[in-house]
Each structure stands twice: as structure tokens, then as C-alpha cells.
């Protein structure tokens, strides 16, 4: 039995088309989560439409009345061949008696891997949020919960959900972008990949580093500025493919582009930015060590 570990986010919402209206609807919901006070734990209630459980701005659980797939169904499909419905229901009954979350029980029994459970929860929560957006759900209230303790391994940032939706545009491209991010970002940096798409009015985020906890609005503004920077750079050098901008004494934004995909890396330290930029420099052809000397000789002889 093979658990579908680490399934790329691009496969998560295969049943949902990403159109501009849907993306803006999802953005609206994600902004609600980002705007919660730091550390807030509780449930955003959308009346009869559903709810989103949040802990410290991370999405732990979401449910929507209009969802097509339930978590147990997604979990069943995490294995090859799929678990039988009877096996899941039996486990569910046992969990109900002991009060154990079914996901954890599946992991403990070895039926589903931790990565498989995370992928299933990601898909479930993503589909729920998309469904809430599709139904135009409006938040009625946020109910604070005094009890915390969701496993951070199974909680998701708003950026991750945004990227999950954006990845629908071109799953193969999103998977490649995720791989590029994973292989390029260094310690003390987080990042995202985006494209320019008619499916969204601004940048379409298609992959994020799992540690990226930026608010979606801030991430999109950073992407928009980066897009503009590359556009403007064409004025003086059409071959600009990377840039680094200091945001303060330590924080630095590094951006690069490759195969029509643009990347933003946000570094918390100067060494991180230096390492990331060094990786970019290594991509430039190493032919510029020898300079044309004509003008210089003329200048130095005067």
C-alpha cells in the first residue's frame, strides 16, 4: 500500500476551476484570517454556510455546506488501492469512542503517512474555503477558543491556500516552481513563485515556501512591485533576471525569474540574502571577467 506522500499542491483542487471571481472571493476570505489579531485562536463562522478554525492565523480546519468531498473520502484515496469505506468507518467508530481524531488514528495505525494526512487536510481545507467563496459566504462572527493545541504540522497559512488555487492554472508549471523554490531558498528566507495571468487582475501566486507566513495582501503587493521592477528594468537592460533590494538593516527582498515564472525570496538576514544572490550570480554566464579595453586605454593615456 503506497501512501500518496507529498502530493504537489497543484493536484489539490483538480475539480475546481480557478477564475478571477473565485480567486478574489478566496482572497477575501484569506484576508479575514490575516486580519485576525496575532495569536487569535477560534472559529470564523459563516452562518449556515460553514466555518474556518484558525490558530495564530493558520488554518486548522474548514468546512462548507457545499463541499463535494469529505475528509474521510479524501483519506480513503490517499492509498493505493483506496481504503475500503468499511475500514474507514470502523476506524471512525473506534475514534469516536476514544475521542481520537481520525487523522491521527490513521497515521498511528500506519494506514496513512503523516505527509499523506497533511495532503488530505490541505485538500479538504482548500476545497472548503473555495466552496465558501463560491457560495459568497459572509462572516457572521469570530468566536474565540480558549483551548489551543492544533498540531502545526497540520495547519496551513493563507499563502499556501492562495498558491493551491493559483496552481490550478498550470499544475506542471506550479510543481516546477515549487521545486525551484525548495531548491533555491536558503536558511532564514521564505518565498513564493508567481506568474502574470489573465485569470487574476494581479500576480497569480502558484507556489509558496511552507514557512511563508506573510499576509496574502502583502505577498501580492511584493509580487506586484517585483513585476513592475522587471518591466522597468527592460528600459536599461532587457536581460535583467535577478534583483536584490534592502528593506532595512537586515531584511532583504531577492527576486529572480526563470521560464516565465517570477520568484520572490524574503530574507531575514544579510547572510541569507548574500547566499541567495550568490546562487543567482552563478546562473549568469561567466564571460565577463575580461573587459573590452578600448575606451579605458584611451582614458588612462590622457
Amino acid at each position, binding site marked *: 500500500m503506497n501512501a500518496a506522500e507529498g502530493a504537489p499542491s497543484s493536484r489539490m483542487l483538480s475539480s475546481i476551476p480557478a477564475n478571477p471571481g473565485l480567486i478574489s472571493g478566496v482572497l477575501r476570505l484569506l484576508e479575514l484570517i490575516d486580519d485576525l489579531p496575532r495569536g487569535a485562536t477560534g472559529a470564523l463562522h459563516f452562518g449556515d454556510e460553514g466555518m474556518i478554525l484558525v490558530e495564530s492565523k493558520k488554518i486548522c480546519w474548514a468546512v462548507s455546506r457545499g463541499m463535494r468531498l469529505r475528509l474521510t473520502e479524501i483519506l480513503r484515496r490517499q492509498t493505493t488501492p483506496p481504503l475500503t469505506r468499511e475500514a474507514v468507518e470502523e476506524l471512525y467508530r473506534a475514534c469516536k469512542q476514544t475521542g481520537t481524531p481520525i487523522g491521527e488514528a490513521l497515521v498511528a495505525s500506519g494506514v496513512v503517512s503523516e505527509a499523506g494526512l497533511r495532503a488530505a487536510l490541505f485538500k479538504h481545507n482548500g476545497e472548503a474555503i473555495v466552496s465558501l467563496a463560491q457560495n459568497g459566504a459572509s462572516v457572521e462572527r469570530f468566536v474565540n477558543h480558549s483551548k489551543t493545541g492544533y498540531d502545526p504540522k497540520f495547519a496551513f497559512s493563507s499563502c499556501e491556500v492562495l498558491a493551491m488555487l493559483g496552481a490550478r492554472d498550470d499544475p506542471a508549471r506550479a510543481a516546477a516552481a515549487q521545486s525551484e523554490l525548495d531548491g533555491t531558498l536558503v536558511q532564514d528566507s521564505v518565498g513564493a513563485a508567481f506568474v502574470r495571468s489573465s485569470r487574476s487582475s494581479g500576480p497569480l501566486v502558484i507556489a509558496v515556501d511552507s514557512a511563508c507566513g506573510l499576509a496574502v495582501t502583502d505577498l501580492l503587493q511584493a509580487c506586484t512591485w517585483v513585476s513592475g521592477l522587471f518591466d522597468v528594468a527592460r528600459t536599461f*537592460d532587457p536581460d535583467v533576471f535577478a534583483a536584490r533590494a534592502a528593506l532595512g538593516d537586515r*531584511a532583504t527582498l531577492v527576486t529572480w525569474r526563470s521560464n516565465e515564472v517570477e520568484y520572490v525570496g524574503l530574507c531575514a538576514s544579510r547572510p541569507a540574502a548574500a547566499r541567495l544572490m550568490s546562487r543567482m550570480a552563478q546562473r549568469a554566464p561567466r564571460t565577463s571577467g575580461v573587459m573590452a579595453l578600448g575606451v579605458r586605454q584611451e582614458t588612462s593615456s590622457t
Partner: protein
Amino acid sequence: MKLVAQGAVVKRADDAGASDITWAVGCMRTGVLLGPPSSAGPNPQIENLAATLPEVFGTVDAGWLERIAAQLEAEPGDHPFGELLLLSEQHVHVIQPLRNHRGVALLAVSGAANAIGLVLSQVHAQVAALEREE
């Protein structure tokens, strides 16, 4: 205020490669060079770089920059952006806003795309010299 980048075309060669830097000082609000570039003649590349200053720096909403800096647990700087470096296959371009001359930036273009550190050390030395000027 008179600010002119010091020295003509900087020439240096070592094991790491050579850097050949053209300097100029530009107004970040208008994109106009505030003095002739250090190159022997007109330098369209640095003039075009200067022309982009208003668009690069003038349209930035400081809010998201501050929030991102805070998220990275860093203090935001005086300017929306500090040093800005752009890398192409053949060139390094640097825009360095001056602290003591608000709204003015040192611009540098070098063909040593494989020697960023060398270029930056020379840019920083040039900036230090400019900052000392009244």
C-alpha cells in the same frame, strides 16, 4: 548641492575578474542625472537607469514593506528601499539612495556580472565619499 561621482571609469583587475564601473548621481524624484556620468562620453545605460528611479521608488507603498520587514523581525530603513541591485547576464546595476542627501541616489553600472562583491565594495566606497560631501 553639487554631487558628482568621484573618479572616472574605475578600472581594477584581479583574480576574481575585472570590474569596470560607471558612476552617476541621480534624482530619485525626477530621474534626472545630477552630474555627468563618470564614463568618457554619454552613457545611455546609466541615463536610462536614472530615468527609472521615479517609477522604482516613487510608486512604493511603504505599508507592505514595513509589514514584511516586521514579519522578518527587522527594522525598516529610512527609505522604502535601501540598496537595490539588479543582475543581468552581462551587467550589474546598483542604485544606492544616499542617507545624507535625501532624494538622491548613486547609480552604478558594471560589466562584471560575476564579481558582485567587488562591484559592491567599490559602490560602498563611492557612497561613503559622497556622504561626506556637504
